[in-house]
């Protein structure tokens, strides 16, 4: 497996040079001749009817292009699963910051005043702002019961297992908060309209064909009259999966009405308040375990707060449901899950996509189950971790040669876990600095869930240009994770040419085929594999044509490609997704192969809880994972480190403060993410078990590192303090509240 020349090498990021030079052009760096600027008037209430819209005097309204729902030539929705997310409010508001009206003007400085001068009158209706309120159902804001989606996953006979004698039952409730992506580049788009060419959209986005689909719906234009081009994108993490379709549609509507190119770029406050976040969750576990620590059954109830429209909640809930069992063998398991509607801006995709919520609950709970049966967390896990040949919660047989027990041991050794644990136990009683160490073992399914990849039916191409350069044709986008680099590595490897002669075709729906969205840790494994087979087809074409021998230099390959183009007018090879054989999935019963492959990981966190200020510092972090073949060690390590940093933020810093569905702390000053001085050394280790259906053995890596840090850290805090904290984000204020009952002030008061 180490014989490859390009794959597995730390080649430089394809667009890295442009980025370090500051020459990479992002959406706000672009301008079009005659371009004007757009802005959005948003709802000020969580729920109600719009009674009227008034335009205050003092603004030259005749200079503005104004768009409302009535100006939409096509359908008033952003095309997603249920098509229920309005592009613009038409009569009824369902969350704060919902777009009601669009404005455009040549002077961008006039827009804030103009937005403030549009007054919307409402008749307010009662609104719902938590899972509990939505569940209670006193106010119905969605369907008949506020439930956006529900699933039932069942394996074995859960009730019978709980009825067995001599078992221990452990219950627990775990909650997670919303999380803001906080990509450093805000959302933005430029749209241009021309009667003949239709709409062209440039945007900071992950999924060009998602935006394409929404633009077709909103503009009513046919497929060939809508073109979407991704420009350099300054971070996304799932946050630019769905919302760019909204902002893109808004820019397009303004461009169609004004006849001029329109740029909409949000500022930070608007981006944070109006766009999606990670779904808050509440998970209840009830676990049956034997006295010698073998898991018998899980009864899990998982709820997500989906926000005001269904958007992606059903698929986030699906991944959460499937990941709820964690990396354990459950003879019996039942997961009942629901996504509830609230009057909050819709929650959306965020790295991990439901798995971080589910795995936080599971991995916190497993530490508590271990304690209940009198075993150490590691010994308890050792007895229950999945083995090759066993089945997951959905009945999927693990065919891959996994060694979770061995990987757990390696990670614990790397962290010096046992020695530290003993030492901390000895030293903690005396100090105001309580040390703790904890860990989590988990998995993440690569690619779309269940039949998803089959529905996507991705298409990928590799072609050659007249100059003899090789291009990868995909709609998979680069936003920092390394798409450009790894796909070029795969093509170069397969073609047997230098990495430098391979490049990415522009991510333009007018040029590239639909290789699916850039989400779900699918790019390396699924799209990469298609690039590999398309590249192989290209090479075989050249060899079969007699232009290329079996052994060749890069220059010879390029010459052959040029010759082929000269003779035939082009050289392109396409490859379409084919599901791996013997894969079975039932969408109704949630049984079967949920994912083609899983990535596995063991994360160990060491913390200090300082009881003067109740603050937590993460002192050391070991991240060990098995992700199949590592295509680029520098990029892969960077993905893990970045994911761990976001996970640390998720656990300890990042709190969205809500006021009736409105984010109050929508500033970087007040939404706290880790700085360069807040992180431990993140030590990354890889195990590599090549996956036969992935590109050169690769599986997914992007989301996995988001899943483990929060439970590992909270397990470490439980070790340090002896207290079970089961909610994140866990802020010093929360720790203070719990520990204050025994605080010195109270004690001393009693002794004086």
């Amino acid at each position, binding site marked *: 497996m180490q014989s490859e020349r390009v794959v597995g090498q*730390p080649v*430089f*990021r394809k*667009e*890295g*040079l*442009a*980025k*370090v*030079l*500051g*020459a*990479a*052009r*992002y959406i*706000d*760096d672009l301008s079009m001749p005659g371009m004007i600027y757009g802005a959005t008037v948003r709802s000020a209430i969580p729920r109600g009817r719009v009674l009227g819209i008034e335009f205050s005097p003092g603004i030259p309204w005749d200079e503005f292009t104004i768009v409302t729902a009535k100006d939409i030539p096509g359908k008033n929705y952003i095309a997603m699963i249920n098509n229920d997310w309005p592009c613009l409010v038409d009569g009824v508001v369902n969350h704060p910051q919902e777009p009601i009206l669009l404005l455009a003007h040549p002077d961008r400085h006039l827009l804030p005043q103009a937005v403030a001068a549009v007054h919307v009158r409402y008749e307010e209706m009662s609104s719902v702002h938590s899972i509990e309120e939505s569940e209670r159902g006193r106010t119905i804001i969605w369907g008949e019961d506020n439930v956006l989606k529900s699933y039932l996953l069942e394996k074995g006979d859960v009730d019978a297992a709980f009825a067995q004698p001599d078992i221990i039952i452990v219950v627990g409730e775990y909650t997670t908060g919303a999380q803001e*992506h*906080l*990509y*450093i*580049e*805000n959302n933005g788009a430029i749209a241009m309209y021309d009667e003949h060419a239709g709409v062209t959209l440039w945007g900071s986005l992950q999924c060009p064909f998602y935006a394409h689909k929404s633009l077709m719906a909103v503009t009513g234009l046919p497929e060939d009259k809508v073109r979407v081009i991704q420009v*350099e*994108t*300054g*971070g*996304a*993490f799932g946050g630019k999966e769905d919302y760019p379709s909204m902002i893109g549609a808004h820019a397009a509507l303004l461009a169609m009405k004004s006849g001029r190119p329109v740029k909409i770029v949000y*500022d*930070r406050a608007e981006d944070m308040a109006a766009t999606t976040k990670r779904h808050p969750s509440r998970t209840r576990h009830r676990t049956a375990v034997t006295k010698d620590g073998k898991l018998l059954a899980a009864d899990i109830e998982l709820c997500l707060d989906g926000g005001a429209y269904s958007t992606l909640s059903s698929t986030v809930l699906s991944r959460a449901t499937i990941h709820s069992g964690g990396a354990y063998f459950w003879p019996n398991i039942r997961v009942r899950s629901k996504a509830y509607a609230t009057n909050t801006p819709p929650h959306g995709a965020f790295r991990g996509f439901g798995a971080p919520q589910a795995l936080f609950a599971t991995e916190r709970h497993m530490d508590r189950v271990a304690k209940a049966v009198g075993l150490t967390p590691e010994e308890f896990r050792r007895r229950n971790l999945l083995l090759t040949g066993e089945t997951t919660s959905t009945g999927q047989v693990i065919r891959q040669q996994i060694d979770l027990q061995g990987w757990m041991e390696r990670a614990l050794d790397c962290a010096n876990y046992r020695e530290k644990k003993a030492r901390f136990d000895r030293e903690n009683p005396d100090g105001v600095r309580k040390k703790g160490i904890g860990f989590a073992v988990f998995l993440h399914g690569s690619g779309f869930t269940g039949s998803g990849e089959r529905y996507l039916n991705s298409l990928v191409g590799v072609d050659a240009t007249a100059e003899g350069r090789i291009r990868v044709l995909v709609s998979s986008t680069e*936003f*920092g*994770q*390394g798409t450009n680099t790894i796909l070029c590595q795969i093509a170069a490897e397969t073609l047997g040419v230098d990495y430098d002669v391979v490049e990415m075709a522009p991510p333009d729906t007018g040029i590239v085929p639909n290789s699916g969205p850039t989400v779900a840790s699918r790019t390396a494994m699924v799209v990469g594999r298609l690039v590999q087979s398309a590249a192989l087809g290209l090479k075989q074409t050249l060899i079969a044509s007699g232009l290329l021998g079996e052994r060749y230099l890069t220059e010879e390959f390029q010459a052959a490609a040029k010759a082929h183009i000269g003779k035939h007018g082009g050289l392109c090879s396409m490859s379409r997704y084919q599901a791996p054989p013997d894969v079975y999935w039932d969408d109704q019963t949630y049984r079967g192969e949920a994912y083609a492959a899983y990535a596995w990981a063991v994360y160990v966190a060491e913390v200090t809880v300082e009881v003067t200020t109740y603050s937590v510092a993460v002192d050391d972090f070991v991240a060990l994972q098995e992700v199949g073949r590592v295509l680029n060690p*520098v*990029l892969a*390590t*960077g993905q893990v*480190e*970045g*994911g*761990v*940093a*976001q996970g640390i933020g998720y656990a300890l810093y990042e709190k969205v403060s809500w006021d009736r569905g409105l984010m109050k702390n929508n*500033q*970087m*000053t007040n939404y706290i*993410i880790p*700085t*360069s*001085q807040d*992180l431990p*050394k*993140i030590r990354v280790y890889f195990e590599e078990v090549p996956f036969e259906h992935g590109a050169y053995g690769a599986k997914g890596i992007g989301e996995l590192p988001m899943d483990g840090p929060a439970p590992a850290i909270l397990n470490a805090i439980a070790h340090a303090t002896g207290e079970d904290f089961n909610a994140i984000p866990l802020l010093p204020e929360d720790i203070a509240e719990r520990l204050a009952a025994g605080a010195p002030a109270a004690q001393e008061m009693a002794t004086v």
Partner: protein
Amino acid sequence: MSMREFSLRVNGVERIVSAPPMARLLDVLRQELGLTGTKEGCGEGECGSCSVLINGELVNSCLVPIAQAAGTSITTIEGVGAHTKLHPVQQAFLQCGGAQCGICTPGMILAAVHLLEKCPNPTREQIEEGLNGNLCRCTGYMRIFAAVEKAATTIEAGVPG
């Protein structure tokens, strides 16, 4: 209020710009001078994406009114290195994986250049502090720290970038 003319030296070149005096240096660089390598992330001096050097000192250009920058010498990312001659910090970012999505990269590189000017052989703690006003959401900073350490070694060895 009326536009005023301000002269300043940008990346070694004397420039005269016409702008309202409260215009943010960031906007003047990006919109008047076309230097779009300087990015806006937050507009409140929190993220450091708009970092530039004024007379060698690191500042957030979103918080500097142009009138206060008149007569100064400014370095933006475009003045740090070129395709043909990368600055050692840029080279190290490329090599060590210090840039992912790239939006914080120009500001981060300027903060790193500033740090190495003031402190040529920084410890890990000094690097962490030197970059503390530049937020990165992709890397978790580890590759960036490695890049700064590498650049320090390169500069010390006198290897041309």
